[in-house]
């Protein structure tokens, strides 16, 4: 093999990679937060809502989970703009990722909410808690604790999937890589670098989610037992 690896471009271009990684973080943190919110509300609607609401949420979840994120991104970016709603690449990315995240979160949180026994709701009712107070204080936190591993995995998967937004030129990490490789012709090296950065980001996200879990789930932190 006569190929010589050459990482010299890094000396000049490393700030681009940092900027790209930073945008990836911003896009995905925003989408994860918004998507979690959407998904949790939809999961509550799916468990406690009326038949019409349950059906609407069901259609949303199935439509998203059975089509590629790439196509969802195209519909938001190219499709909506052709209908007159012009969004920037970054906003389109956040919208598409949020809608996608919301559907997966709905399914995960639904399982968590359904695992909370009816008797817990009755106990809260007998103590005089309103429906909303019951959901906030008795249902959501333990539901989230039960499905937190699945949620965390999904969050990391979303971070990795955000690379697909490079296809509408949101200038995140992968788009940066595409740009640098077309300038330098060191394609393989560029993607090796970016793969390593994504691995580091995955580790960072896992660590952050673990730390957030420690803060959120006080009982688990103190006893270390599953709920």
């Amino acid at each position, binding site marked *: 093999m006569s190929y010589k690896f050459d990482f010299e471009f890094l000396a000049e271009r490393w700030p681009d990679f940092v900027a790209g990684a930073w945008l990836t973080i911003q896009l995905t943190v925003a989408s994860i937060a918004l998507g979690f919110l959407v998904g949790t509300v939809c999961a509550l609607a799916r468990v406690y809502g009326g038949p019409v609401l349950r059906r609407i949420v069901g259609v949303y979840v199935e439509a998203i989970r059975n089509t590629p994120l790439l196509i969802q991104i195209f519909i938001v970016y190219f499709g909506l703009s052709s209908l007159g709603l012009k969004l920037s690449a970054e906003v389109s990315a956040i919208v598409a990722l949020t809608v996608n995240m919301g559907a997966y979160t709905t399914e995960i949180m639904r399982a968590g909410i359904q695992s909370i026994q009816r008797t817990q709701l009755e106990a809260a009712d007998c103590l005089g808690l309103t429906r909303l107070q019951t959901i906030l204080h008795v249902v959501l936190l333990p539901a989230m604790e039960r499905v937190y591993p699945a949620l965390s995995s999904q969050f990391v998967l979303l971070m990795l999937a955000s690379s697909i937004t490079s296809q509408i030129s949101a200038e995140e990490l992968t788009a940066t890589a595409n740009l640098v490789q077309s300038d330098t012709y060191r394609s393989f090296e560029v993607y090796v670098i970016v*793969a390593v950065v994504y691995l580091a980001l995955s580790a960072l996200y896992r660590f952050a989610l673990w730390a957030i879990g420690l803060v959120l789930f006080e009982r688990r932190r103190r006893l270390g037992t599953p709920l």
Partner: protein
Amino acid sequence: MIQLSSTHILYLIEAARWTVLLSLIAFAGGALVGLPLALMRVSRSKLLRGLASVYIQIVQGTPLLIVLFLSYFGLGILGYKLDPLVAAGISFTIYAAAFLGEIWRGCIEAVPKTQWEASDCLGLNPVQQYAYVILPQAVRIATPPTVGFMVQIVKNTSLASVIGFVELARAGQIVNNSTFEPFVIFAVVGAIYFAICYPLSVASRHLERKANAGR
């Protein structure tokens, strides 16, 4: 403006055949590499367990898109012609193997320990234990999540479009370039993906319910 015609629709459906083919290649390759990975993950050898685990961690921590670029440009480095189908086949095999390996590991571990002990007491050697006792049971546990993962594979084949492979997503872009009706076209493309994926999702859920009811 050129209207979306039945020719375009036919073209998209034609391209969907490549999506299906690519999915089958990905699944076959993923299964071929994934099964040894799963067995390594539950093996008694610390080295094998560690190797499989490192492989899975790396692949699951890297975007599939980057794996695709690496395969595509890596082929060039090795002196081969840049062939999107080969690069896509390799990438999806690498990707599917990591996820299937992890799913199947869980299924093998879900077979009760007593089954190992019982077959051991009957004098079966480890290979016989796997072949006649453990794997047949693991397959039944593994079927619903495996069918579910096939949905992920089908959807992810859309990424092959970025290295120029003309499957359904790329075909959608091509049609869009001539008709400039992105909303309609990508909605149609999405619907075709849905038509492939939804039956798999339903089957996976159905199998899972059946498995739970049988317990």
